[in-house]
């Protein structure tokens, strides 16, 4: 009864094309944002904020990035980790080279650097596609990680090859470095992710997103109706890498504070690919759901068997994680290729018709 749109009339196109045309959705979204911005920082403790929520937000941002490329534009990429590393190291270089530059601009600029690198590795996508391209993006993954590990310039010649986030503040609150509180980091991260997610949502709703989806569904047909494939694909690579780059910068500066290139190895790429498959290919909401799932599952596996009295060893948990992820990927691809987001959508459809399903 609550989720019903009868009685909500729209008298102009703008209202009809709004992101959330149904009032209940708007209220729900406002409630979620209010909870995320106000309630959570008040009640959540340090552990919850810094080991669950912050990585969740960062993963979600990276997943949005990959989803734009793979879910919307249909270009499978296994190089996400490489682009995240690009963002992280670009942010480090920018932050240390221009100490007075605001940290928000540092992050956005480092996203831009990652975007440029993404475009370079996206160039082959005109001639090759499918798993050929997946292999090409692996080249990006391995090459970039190697570059950041081997060239000391990227770490400002630190002996350990580790970059550590310099302390920076926004509106007088430290958001990076050791003085930053978990709450400040969380709010900063949340703001950035929320804004970027909104931008992504609008991007994929509009002309650009439709061009991406046309390329994904049938690239040759899309070309015939006047969509320029190279430009469209490269734009997808650029936007996707931008998001991944910002996510990488946030990872290095906000989540771990100090990071080496190997944190962004091939497994990180797979992890984010799993997020978008489980969460839902071609869905911004799915990126969040998938990220939440992948962040929470290991914690669940750690906590539940122990509380049931069968503590598992770390190695066993890692293996179980592998098995569960693998099985879930196959399960979702077979049963529900649009992932958790699609399940949520189905639930909403049912609610709108309830209690008269026909």
């Amino acid at each position, binding site marked *: 009864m609550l989720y019903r749109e009868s009685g909500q009339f729209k008298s102009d196109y703008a209202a009809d094309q709004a992101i959330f045309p149904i009032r209940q959705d708007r209220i729900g979204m406002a409630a979620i944002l209010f909870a995320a911005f106000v309630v959570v920082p008040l009640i959540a403790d340090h552990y919850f904020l810094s080991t669950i929520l912050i990585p969740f937000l960062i993963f979600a941002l990276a997943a949005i990035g990959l989803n734009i490329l793979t879910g919307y534009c*249909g270009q*499978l990429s296994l190089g996400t980790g490489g682009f995240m590393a690009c963002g992280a190291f670009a942010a480090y270089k920018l932050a240390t080279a221009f100490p007075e530059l605001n940290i928000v601009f540092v992050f956005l600029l480092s996203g831009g650097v990652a975007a440029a690198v993404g475009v370079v590795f996206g160039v*082959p996508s005109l*001639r*090759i596609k*499918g*798993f*050929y391209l*997946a*292999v*090409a993006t*692996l*080249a990006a993954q*391995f*090459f970039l*990680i*190697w570059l950041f*590990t*081997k*060239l000391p310039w990227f770490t400002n010649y630190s002996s350990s090859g580790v970059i550590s986030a310099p302390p920076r503040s926004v509106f007088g609150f430290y958001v990076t470095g050791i003085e930053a509180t978990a709450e400040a980091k969380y709010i900063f991260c949340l703001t950035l992710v929320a804004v970027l997610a909104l931008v992504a949502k609008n991007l994929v709703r509009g002309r650009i997103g439709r061009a991406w989806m046309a390329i994904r569904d*049938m690239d*040759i*047909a899309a070309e*015939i109706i006047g969509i320029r494939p190279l430009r469209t694909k490269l734009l997808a690579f650029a936007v996707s890498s931008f998001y991944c780059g910002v996510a990488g910068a946030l990872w290095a500066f906000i989540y771990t504070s100090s990071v080496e290139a190997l944190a962004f190895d*091939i497994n990180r790429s*797979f992890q984010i*690919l799993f997020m978008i*498959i489980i969460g839902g290919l071609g869905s911004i909401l799915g990126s969040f759901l998938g990220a939440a799932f992948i962040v929470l599952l290991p914690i669940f596996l750690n906590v539940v068997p122990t509380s049931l009295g069968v503590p598992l060893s770390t*190695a*066993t948990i*890692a*293996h*179980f*994680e*592998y*098995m*569960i*992820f*693998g*099985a*879930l*990927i*196959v399960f979702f*691809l*077979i049963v529900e*290729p649009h992932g958790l987001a699609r399940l949520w959508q189905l639930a909403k459809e049912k609610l709108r018709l309830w209690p008269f399903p026909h």
Partner: protein
Amino acid sequence: MIDILFGPLKEIWEFPAFFAEVVIGGLLSGVMYSLVALGFVLIFKASGVFNFAQGAMVLCAALTFVGFEELGAPFWLALILTLGVMLLMALAIERLVLRPLVNQAPIILFMATIGVTFFIDGLFQTIWGSDVKRLDVGIPKDPIEFAGVQVNSFDIVAALIAGALVAGLAFFFQSTRIGRALRAVADDHQAAQSVGIPLQTIWVIVWAVAGLVALVAGTMWGSKLGVQFSLALIALKALPVLILGGFTSIPGAIVGGLIIGMGEKVAEVYWAPGIGGGIEDWFAYILALVFLMFRPQGLFGEKIIERV
């Protein structure tokens, strides 16, 4: 800069014997890449599925083989048991994963095999444990000398075995009834079915053969490097080999493997020290990527024709 690029050329010119050694070593390790790549090609040829799990299958084969040997099984029994396990696994993958995904886009199938990779990695490590194991199949490892060039005898035996395997496969594909049916299926599923070739049986056979190739590759790599998780990563080495050789060509897998193996070794020995070393991780990929820009279908691949 110029010194980094051209210095090694001078070195090659001055010490040709050492260069020959590097090249031969590279070729021989390329043979091993080819072995893994073969498994990919077999499955891709017959079902159009790009099986990312091939690397995991290589690891599983080696792990299972060592596992049975540690339980006290003699060599031949362990081999047969492992073959049985690989066969079962191939059947299970075909039945549980691929059949429900028939008619899906290749990219979906590819992602599904990534899922399979993680699943069997986890499963087999849960069963057999994840510590490094030693595998000895009795192949000597002493270096021998040919005309002043040092070669590891293990590599030569491995190359011979790989050669025999390829010859066997070529015979199987070209001259037997099943082989012919297989090629028919590869060409066109529906046409093959309509002339009475049982599609499911053929797929099972292909996956079983791929399992066998994985077993051979697994024992070879396992006795060279020890059986451990990193074996699964060898699949990542086989991917550029495939790209170079073309996904559908058995000779392509061989030649691609040789080129990658040789190029990688030469680059690593001569050019890597100038730029920081450890370029083996990505050299093959960049080589394949550059190659793709000019010839997207690979050396021996069929030309890709697309229609709306």
